[in-house]
């Protein structure tokens, strides 16, 4: 299992969490190279569809991070996001996607440390689960095989 190098799709809001990732860099806080960051303006931009697509594509984990409640650059985008995440998490887990594959966080642009901590935590949990198995769309060739 230790050789397993997961790939985790990470959606970061531009104003807070992406800034935190930048700050983690400036501060040289180390975490393993398993994240693939997709920058979005706001956590409110992330539709359930994108998370489903990431999992279908074989992401071993998905991590979404936005501004803390009250800090949203767009006033309230993260509050709507929070409701979406709640439903998404429930439906995915209900369907048998392991809880450890899907992570959410609020990280402000001043929280470089927290960014690195959560990154490490997310990676750890995904590593524990091993490669994603069930909800992966196979290409026709793969399906045939």
């Amino acid at each position, binding site marked *: 299992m230790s050789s397993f190098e997961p790939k985790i799709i990470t959606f970061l809001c531009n104003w807070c969490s992406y800034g935190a990732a930048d700050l983690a860099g400036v501060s040289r806080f180390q975490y393993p190279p398993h994240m693939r960051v997709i920058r979005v303006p706001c956590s409110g931009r992330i539709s359930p*569809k994108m998370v489903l*697509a990431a999992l279908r594509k074989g992401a071993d984990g998905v991590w979404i991070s936005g501004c803390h409640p009250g800090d949203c650059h767009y006033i309230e985008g993260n509050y*709507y996001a929070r409701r979406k995440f*709640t*439903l998404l998490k429930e439906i995915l887990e209900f369907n048998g996607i392991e809880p450890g594959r899907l992570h959410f966080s609020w990280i402000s642009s001043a929280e470089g440390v927290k960014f690195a901590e959560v990154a490490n935590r997310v990676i750890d949990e995904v590593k524990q689960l091993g490669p994603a198995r069930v909800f992966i769309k*196979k290409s026709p060739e793969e399906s045939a095989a």
Partner: protein
Amino acid sequence: MNRYTETIQTLAAKLLETGDVKTVLGFKRGTFPLTTEPFLATTPADTGELYWDVNCRLNLATYLKKEMGKVAVVAKGCDTRNILVHITENRIKREDVVIIGVPCTGMIEVKKATEMAGGDILYATEQGEEMILTTAGEEIRVPKAQLLRQNCALCAHPNPVIYDMLVADPVPVQTGMDRYADIREIDAKTSDAKWAFFDEAFSACTRCYACRNACPLCYCPTCFVDESRPQWVGKGTDPVDVRTYHMLRAIHCAGRCTECGACESACPMDVPVRLLTRKMEKTVGDRWGLEAGLTLDARPAQDIFCLDDPEEFIL
């Protein structure tokens, strides 16, 4: 002719006579036993066809369209809630619809009745708390409660929540029922077992979209599964695609679904699609204390938020 049918016909005739509405949307007897069909009455004379019994499983909100002008619709408790969602979502205007509310005692599930009767049923009549099922060979009496669809058996809002007229006095509302025992049972499974359970449950799905068509909430001009740019969900019966469809549809209906059961009743393959919508319904209730279609004053759950919505899962 039962009392409900009689009253519906009278009310409808009056509405059409006075010109209050151009159309009355209701049910008529179906071609086959234990079925009904949607019916549009446009003249007082048509109203004689209007009908009501335990087989009015369809949710007529599906057929409400802005273009219909002023229309009256026959609606059960769950249907009225759905109409209410439609009003908040700008599908129809409150002033354009006359709701003939039906205090509902529940609709039966054909499969259950057939199994119970041990053969094809020719007639089914409601008598008090019982159903009399007539097959080719015999006539059996079964407590209606045993035949109810699950959503009806667990119904918490049998009476219309919004209406212009009622067909009868409100019926008693049951309380204390355990609405989510089956959901909790699945919740308790391991992830792998959950996956396997639904793999099996959805294996019959042929992507015929009967559920989507029956659902009044699925009114998008183009469903996400039919999107072409990008086309990210396959159109066939690949299990991952099937699951994607059902999961995302459940999310789309979360906070809006009023548990009318039309989807499941419409499914030719007995796919338990409501497990997912009910999981969402439970989540919306547990987390935010909301139920769909009870107020005109607020948008559905996903369109609003509270500052202190629970967020223990967010790091």
